[in-house]
Structures are given as C-alpha cells and as structure tokens.
C-alpha cells in the first residue's frame, strides 16, 4: 500500500511517499508522476521519509520518472531516505543517478 500526497512550492512539486513502492503500487506512482510532468511540473522532490520499502519494480519507476523529467530539462531529487531504502539504491548503483539529500529543505 502506498499513499502519495503532493504540495507545490513555487515551481517545485513535493510528493510525500507513504508506504511501499513495490510491484503493486509502482504503476500508480508512475501514472501520477507522468501526469505531473505532462502538466508542466518538471521540478520534482520526493519526500521518502515514510517510504518503508522499494523493490526492483519501484526502482524502475524512479528511473522512468528521472528519464522523463530529464527530457523536459527538469530535475528529480530524493529526500530523507531511511537507511534500508538508501541501501537498495546504493546496491543497485542507481543512487549515483539521483540527487539524494537528507531533508526536503536541502532540496529546495
């Protein structure tokens, strides 16, 4: 289960991810994020403080979002990851592809 709540601060959209980004929930996140991008929101900040878990399917969705945002010359930042989630990004090698910061305030 995952809940996504979004707020807009200036030209940045902050999406708070609450729950697990796995095979069940990643499709919904992908659709939502693509909708933001198509509506002109190309500066995205994902608040991962309450993101409990990310699977390989979830990693793919983050990659898709980053690719789409890159095509629009925008940016994606990931914030406040738990050690377990950060470990998954590090093991996969994908932490180098994202800007990962300790807190949302660091991303703004």
């Amino acid at each position, binding site marked *: 289960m995952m809940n996504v709540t979004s707020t807009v601060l200036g030209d940045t959209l902050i999406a708070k991810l609450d729950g697990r980004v*796995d*095979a069940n929930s990643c499709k919904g996140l992908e659709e939502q994020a693509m909708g933001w991008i198509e509506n002109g929101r190309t500066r995205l900040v994902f608040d991962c403080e309450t993101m409990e878990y990310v699977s390989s399917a979830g990693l793919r969705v983050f990659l898709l979002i980053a690719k789409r945002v890159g095509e629009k010359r925008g940016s994606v930042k990931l914030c406040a990851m738990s050690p377990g989630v950060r470990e998954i990004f590090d093991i996969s090698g994908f932490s180098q592809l994202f800007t990962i910061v300790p807190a949302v305030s660091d991303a703004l």
Partner: protein
Amino acid sequence: MRKPDSIVYWLDDRPPAHVAFFVALQQISFLGVYLVVSPLFAHAQHLDTSIYSRLMAATLIVSGIGVILQAFGRGGIGSGYFCPLQVTSATFSVMTLASVAGGLELAFGMVGVLGFAQVLFGELFRRARGVFSVEVAGVAVTLIGFGLGHVGLQLAIGFDTPRAMAQHDGLVAAVTLGTMIVFNVWFARHLRLFSAFLGLLVGFAVDWWLGGLTAEDIAQFRQAALFGRPHLPAVGWRFEPALIPYFVVVGLALSLHGFGALAAAQRFNDADWKRPDVNSVCRGIRAEGLANMIGALFNALPVTSSGGAVGLAAATGCTSRLPAYWLGGMMIVGAFIPKLTALWLMIPVPVIGAAAIFLSAFTVLAGMQMIASRMLDNRKILAVGLGLICGLSHGSLRPFYESNLPTFLQPITLSSVALGVVVATVLSAVFRLGARTRAREVFDATTATLDDLCLVLDRQGRRWGARPEVVRRAEYATWQAFEILIDHQLVGREEGECRRIEVETTFDEFTFTVLAGYHGIALPIVQHPPTADEMIANEAAVIRMAGYLLHRLADRVETRCDGGGRAELVLTFFD
C-alpha cells in the same frame, strides 16, 4: 574487531612507558578500595597484625599474578584483555564457615577447590553458549555497574563504611567526581587517559587540606616497614570434603561475576561487538581459577575480575595489554614494600567512592547496550527482567536470603551480580525447553503481504535473540524474493490448491537462514545488475535486478530445483 573511536591505546598497542606506568598507577589507585576488604576480613577473624600483613602481601602477589595471566592469553590461559582482579567480600561467609570448622588453614585450603571449580565453570560457559547469551552477559555487566555505583555512593557519603563519616566527605567526593568528569569530557588524549587518576589526586589533596588525613593515618604510614619479605604461606592448608559444595557454589558466583567483567572488556574493545567470545571468556575464567588456586597455596583472599577496573580502562581510553604487566609488577613489588601498601590505604574513602560512581556510569550503559542489541521475545524479556530485579533488590533482601535459603545456596546471594546472573541463566535455560531453532510457515502467494512476512520473521528473531539488523535484512530480501516469485508467475499451483510458498527459518546464533520452498521455477540469481538503460528499456530487467538485490542483500543465496516441479530459494544471513 574494530577499534572504538573512544579508545586511544587499543589491545595490541604499546603506549610509551610513562603512559603505561601512569595508567597502571591509576588502576592501582582505584583497586585500592578493594584493599579494605583484607582488613575487614582480618577484623572479622580477629587476626593479629603479623598474620594480617602476610595476608595482604599474599593477596597482592596473587592479584599481580592474576592480572598478568589474564592479559597473557596464551596456552589456553587468560582472556587476552586488560582485566585486573579484585578482592571480593562475596567469599567471606563461606571462608568464615570453613574457619570456624577448621581454622584459617582450612579456609585457605578450600580456596583451591573454589579455583578448580572456576576452571570447570569456564568450560561450561564455552559449551553452553546458548544459555550464557548476549542478554545474560548484559545482565551481568549491568549489575556490576549498578553494584559499583551503589558502593561508590555509600563510600562517597560515608554511609555504612568502615570508618566514621566526616563532614566534608560529600564535598571531597563531589570535587573528585567533578574533576574526573571535566578531564574525561572536555579534554583529549593524555589528560583524558589520566582523568580518573587526576581526580584521585585532586580529591586526595582536598581531603588533606580539609583535615581528612588523621594523625593515626600518618602514624600507620610511618610505622610501616620500607621493605619486608612476604611470609608465604601465611598460615598453611587443610582440606575438608564436606565443604566442597559450598566452595563450588562460591566458585560459580565468582565465575558469573568474571563472565560479566570479561564480556564488558570485550564490548569495550570492539566497536562491532555482537556477542561474547565464549572461548576468550573460558580462558579468562580459567586464569581466575588458576590465580585462586595459587592464592590457596599462598593463603591469599579469593579474587575475581574487576568490572570497575575494566570500565576505568575503557572510560580513560587505554585498553592496551601492556599496562597489565606494569600493574602486575607493581602489585608484586608492592607486596615487598609494606610502606606502599600503607600509602595505598591512605586514599580517602570518599575519593574512591567518587571513582566508583564515575566508572559505574560507563559499565551500566555498556550492559544495557548489550541487552538492547538483540531482539527480545517474552521469554528473554522475563529472563533479563527477573534477573535484573533480583540483582537490584539484592541489598535490601539479603537478610531474608540469609534467614530462609539453604546454606549451600547462600553464596549465590552474597552478591547482586551472582544472584541476578543465576536467575537470568536458569530462566534462560528453562525457557529453551520446547523452543526450536527451526520454524515453518506457509504463505498464500496470492494474498501474502510484507506485514505477514515481517510478523513471522520478527517473531522468530525475538524468540532466538537475533540482532535487529540481521532480521531487517532478511525481511527485505525475502519480500524481494516473494515479489518476483509472485509477480512473474514463478510460483505455480499445486493440484488445484492455491499458490503456496513455504518459508522455513533457522537460527544458530551465527546465521539466520530463510528457505522458501514452492512449486514452480527457480528464481534467477545474477551477479551483475542490469544498467539503468536496460531497466528503462525492458520491464523484464526488473527480475534480473531483483535477483541481483538478493545476491547482495543476503550473505549467501542458493536456488535449486528437484526436477519434479519443486523449487527452493535459500537465503543465508551471517550475524
């Protein structure tokens, strides 16, 4: 092993000679508080001065031999850690029993039985590592810390002490403790290394200035001979088989105390400490036992590993073995210089009390961290909780134990550490009855959730006292496996039944293993991850990434198929 950040001179480091000397001097100043145990025993036994002097000399020599044996760590003797030995009053009642039955010769002769029993108990700790677990070690260390703090407070305020309280005792203790804290917290390296010694010096000076040093103290110092050959043995030996059980029980009490002190020494010397090294504990208890057997020959009071001295080494940042040889040498030489012993006895009681309070803080927290490092289920919570309760309430309930318990059990109740650890150990052993180190659970692949899996693995982790980090890795990796098996249709149906995954977990203190068995296709495990471009271009790359994550999250991954449609995935996590 990894050197903790707080340690300046580690186990194998060789500090400069002057540093090693002053560290040893600092230790001997702290251990001075336990020297008062010898005059207490002499007073209780109505010994004349000559016998008492022989006793002191013999005890000093054995303490010196003991700390050297403990640090030596070769030939199966000694833990290899800097772990000084201290005299303990926990043996008084049984030695008095023997003394009444057959004189001091019998009391000291039976100390040999105590030492031999310790050697055997050390071996027991090694073979029953499942019972003498991290939590039990934590109970021992915590109770050592609380006991030290309790004694420290009593000495600091002059409550229930051998000499009458002076008005300025509290002030002297506060100044001493404050000095130690200032040098330990706000200074680095050498000043921190000697923070306890500096506090002792300042406290001594303040006490002297306030008139704490009496004419009697100075006279005793002046009267003490400069040199004197120790008379060994002090009185002689006798042996009585009927007293064996009493001294064996005391041997158990001292061994449990030593177990706690040695576990604390290991904990203070390894930033990655996970569990007691029972082989090192066994060798350490063996060294204690050997020291006490030598003590029986020389007629010295029994000694045990000092949790306070271990805490002092850690608090000041020098846990090197080298000061152990300096300390041992000083103690042995001190046996030949009665004037040094007299000087040692002049250290004011509130000053030593302040030192004990200072050290107890580090020791208590080390024990609590040991306990908290493991997942605990109700069995372990009860074993630890009841052990701590019995240990902490020991002081106020001791008269009850003396009046109501059988005589042969009395020695276990002579110290809070022995009582608390015995309770925790017995409960730990009893609760292992019926507890299996293997568990099986069946999940419906269609409806299983991460929460269901975490519930099972958490429960097993608590039951087995696994480290939380290991269980978390197991949960993460196993759910990754579940996702791929389910989402990529690798789990088939078994003859009309639902798609099932059988999860079997096993634990043996060093490894946590998850075996997922199912009807279907083996999960591919890869050693190289797909690239980001491959992940974006091809959704099938997700399964390769999952296999790679499993390969990295688990310490060992195996997959197998039996050719009959049954597949297994085995994930092993080393603790």
